[in-house]
């Protein structure tokens, strides 16, 4: 045999080898997956013709907006879809076919070959069972250990996922842990039997950015240690850039683009991916401060303190908070959950009376104003809350929702004038006239939030308080809603107190920023200099924790962080 022949043969053998290996090695393989939900009003197709795979040690991110079907794919992979789902196609997990397999056999698979981390750590754990016992249950589902051995191993797992004092925490109930700790417990359950595949469905969406960074670090480390393949379902492009090797983009139940993370995030080929990425708010790395605004403050909180509750269980929600908003400007109020930012906004709205300090609205002390004058004063403030479903009365039509403030504060207005004003405001927020007669539930999330905005603007307020107005919305919808607010602000000249946990959004829309932590103002100043050159460690940490949707930049930031941490 000549040398060349030998080489060719070896090559062919190698090729066959790799082909066979990849097929065998893939921890998850999905082919031609279709899922249809049967409902009272007919069949609703959720996903169609999905093909994807995950190899050991690799992370595939499945991204898309709400309703794209990404969670359906994740649940289908473990056979966890609800009873009204009809599944077609092929799903193979660690060599086992999932579609059409009975519960008993799936139970052997779940938690051992493949396991799952869910979005909402607040509800993912049994509230009445100690966390150690919940982890031990997963261990004993698959391994013949005694109760005591499983309990010991549960403590070990808690230690591995970074829970302090794991011996003590193992006997805690879920409500005694923070959101981040609960998610660590869910992760401990997921890795209890060292699975080959980990499916993480929006694992950090319900968490603060700093906690999100910790959880992502933990997941990345665990996946690397065990060579676990990860299917990461998320809507957050920053998380994708931070974590994924490959990306599959979903739109309306189909995968429209798939490829390595650098390619998809930096050089997207599909028009939808391009649009999605363009809508993602990004932290700018340079920029100038906006010129300082002149004029008397429209709202001013001075040394405001608020306590909730009494006795030893009382919570100091605000502690000596001082901030103001000047005419025509947007002030971003940022901080993590529990920092008091929403409480501060509610104080500015006169909804919560401060225990100490003063609130003045348009130069008048709100604490000394009562009755009719107080109502007149407060009618100059519009408000938009986070959840447009909860904040609009489902029994009213859109027009009635928007007209309600007029009925309250402009009693003398004729109904013809009122109708005209409502139509005018709906046009301002770019809602088609036809929607006026519909109910809020018939609208999309973005449309509903624009109804909230119309309602808040109908009295021509001088101040708009927006409390996480876009947190419940998809990025593309978020962008249009934020643009409507910014445009109307230029047109109508109201000032805006903008509460958000999203630093990138605040950086883009606010001229000044107030950073809050544990009820205190950590620092405040012009947006660009505060966010680019933060003076406090806390702000620095907050910014460092926000993942940017660029895998190259994100990797550099992570490396930098690590050297800083070790230094």
């Amino acid at each position, binding site marked *: 045999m000549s040398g060349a022949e030998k080489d060719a043969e070896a090559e062919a053998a190698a090729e066959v080898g790799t082909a066979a290996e990849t097929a065998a090695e893939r921890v998850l393989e999905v082919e031609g997956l279709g899922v249809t939900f049967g409902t009272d009003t007919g069949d609703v197709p959720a996903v169609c013709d999905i093909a994807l795979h995950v190899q050991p040690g690799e992370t595939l991110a499945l991204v898309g907006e709400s309703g794209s079907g990404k969670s359906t794919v994740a649940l289908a992979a473990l056979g*966890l879809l609800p009873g009204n789902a009809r599944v077609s196609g092929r799903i193979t997990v660690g060599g086992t076919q999932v579609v059409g397999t009975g519960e008993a056999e799936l*139970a052997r698979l779940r938690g051992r070959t493949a396991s799952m981390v869910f979005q909402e750590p607040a509800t993912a754990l049994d509230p009445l069972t100690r966390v150690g016992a919940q982890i031990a*249950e997963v261990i004993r589902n698959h391994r013949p250990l005694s109760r005591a051995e499983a309990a010991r191993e549960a403590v070990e797992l808690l230690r591995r996922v970074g829970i302090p004092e794991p011996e003590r925490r193992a006997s805690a109930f879920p*409500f005694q842990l923070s959101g981040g700790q609960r998610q660590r417990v*869910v992760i401990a359950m997921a890795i209890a039997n060292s699975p080959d595949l980990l499916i993480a469905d929006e694992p950090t969406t319900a968490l603060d950015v700093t906690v999100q960074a910790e959880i992502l670090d933990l997941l990345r480390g665990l996946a690397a240690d065990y060579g676990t393949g990860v299917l990461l379902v998320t809507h957050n492009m920053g998380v994708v850039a931070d974590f994924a090797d490959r990306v599959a983009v979903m739109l309306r139940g189909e995968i429209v683009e798939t490829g390595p993370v650098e390619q998809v995030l930096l050089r997207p080929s599909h028009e939808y991916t391009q649009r999605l990425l363009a809508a993602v708010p990004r932290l700018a790395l340079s920029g100038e401060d906006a010129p300082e605004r002149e004029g008397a403050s429209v709202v001013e909180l001075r040394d405001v303190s608020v306590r909730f509750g009494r006795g030893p269980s009382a919570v100091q929600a605000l502690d000596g908070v001082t901030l103001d908003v000047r005419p025509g400007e947007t002030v971003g109020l940022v901080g993590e959950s529990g920092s008091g930012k929403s409480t501060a906004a509610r104080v500015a709205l006169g909804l919560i009376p401060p225990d100490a300090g003063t609130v003045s609205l348009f130069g008048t002390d709100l604490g000394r104003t009562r009755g009719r004058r107080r109502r007149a004063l407060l009618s100059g403030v519009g408000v938009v809350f986070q959840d447009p479903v909860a904040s609009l009365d489902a029994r009213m039509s859109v027009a009635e929702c928007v007209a309600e403030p007029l009925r309250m504060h402009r009693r003398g207005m004729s109904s013809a004038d009122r109708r005209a004003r409502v139509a005018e405001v709906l046009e301002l927020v770019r809602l088609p006239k036809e929607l006026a007669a519909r109910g809020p539930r018939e609208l999309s999330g973005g449309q509903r939030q624009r109804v909230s905005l119309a309602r808040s603007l109908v009295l021509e307020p001088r101040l708009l308080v927006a409390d996480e107005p876009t947190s419940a919305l998809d990025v593309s919808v978020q962008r249009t809603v934020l643009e409507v607010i910014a445009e109307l602000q230029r047109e109508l000249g109201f000032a805006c107190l903008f509460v958000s946990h999203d630093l990138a959004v605040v950086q883009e829309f606010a001229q000044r920023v107030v950073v809050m932590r544990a009820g205190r103002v950590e620092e405040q100043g012009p947006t660009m200099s505060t966010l680019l050159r933060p003076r406090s460690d806390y702000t620095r940490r907050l910014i460092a924790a926000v993942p940017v949707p660029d895998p190259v930049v994100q990797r550099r930031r992570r490396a930098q962080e690590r050297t800083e941490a070790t230094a």
Partner: protein
Amino acid sequence: METLLYLLRRALQALVVILIVTVVVFCLLHALPGGPARGILGPQATAQQIAAFNHEQGLDRSLPVQYVYYLRTLLHGDLGTSYTLNEGVSQLIGQRLPKTLVLTVLSALVGLLLAIPLGMWQAVRRNKPADYVITTLSFVAYSTPVYFLGLILVLVFTQTLHWFPSQAPQGDTLAQVFADPVALVLPVVTGAASMVAVFSRYMRAATLENLSEDYVRTARAGGSRQGAILFRHVFRNSLTPVIAMLGYYVPVLFGGALVVEQLFNYPGMGLLFWSAAQSSDYPVLLGCVLVISVATVVGTLLADVVQRVVDPRVKAGRT
């Protein structure tokens, strides 16, 4: 320590509620047509006789003074005297309360032991034929008047099958009651029927709600079987709302006892109440009302305490 303080606080609250009940009962006593005197002396009594009686009994004093007097006799365990039986109300109730307690507690136990598994089973087989059949039977059991149900049971099990006697155990002591357990079956079943209907519905709803909770999905994703999920997780979580309902169910149980005792000729408090109502024996009626009110308050208190034991979040004030 924390638990002790809690119990103390709850006991004080219960005491306040019971005091309010005594005020209501006291006011009712005095709202009787013609007052207690007319009730005792009868319609033929002269105005003089009534005045003398009122003076003798201290009924001509101001109402607050009388209330304090009433409360004092109450604290001595004196609920007044029956108009018709010529015996102390406390003695009458003291004799009969244990028998009624036996009946109601047994009915409640039997009812719950049937209702809880039934409700869970229905939830698991939701919208399947078995679920529909049990649901229908529950509605039938719930909407059938207790006395009618009792009559049917007597007709079937006594007259036709001769399995059980139609009379509850007779005799005044508990020993005598327990000496004849077969005779207790029909009264207990009759009392338990509506309880099974109501609580299997609660349990079904609670189980269904819990089955759709995220933690069930987490447990399934960890490889737990349906049975293990039901018994380790869903069962306890579904039980808490059912326990809360139990406390409020105490007066309903007593209401049922009223009919059951009459039907099976079982001389407990229900029968006492029944005959007192027929002879307008107000002191007995109001004494019974007071006892049932106290039982309800104690029942809710017990339910709260049990719930605190079952659900650690209640103790931490997180629900």
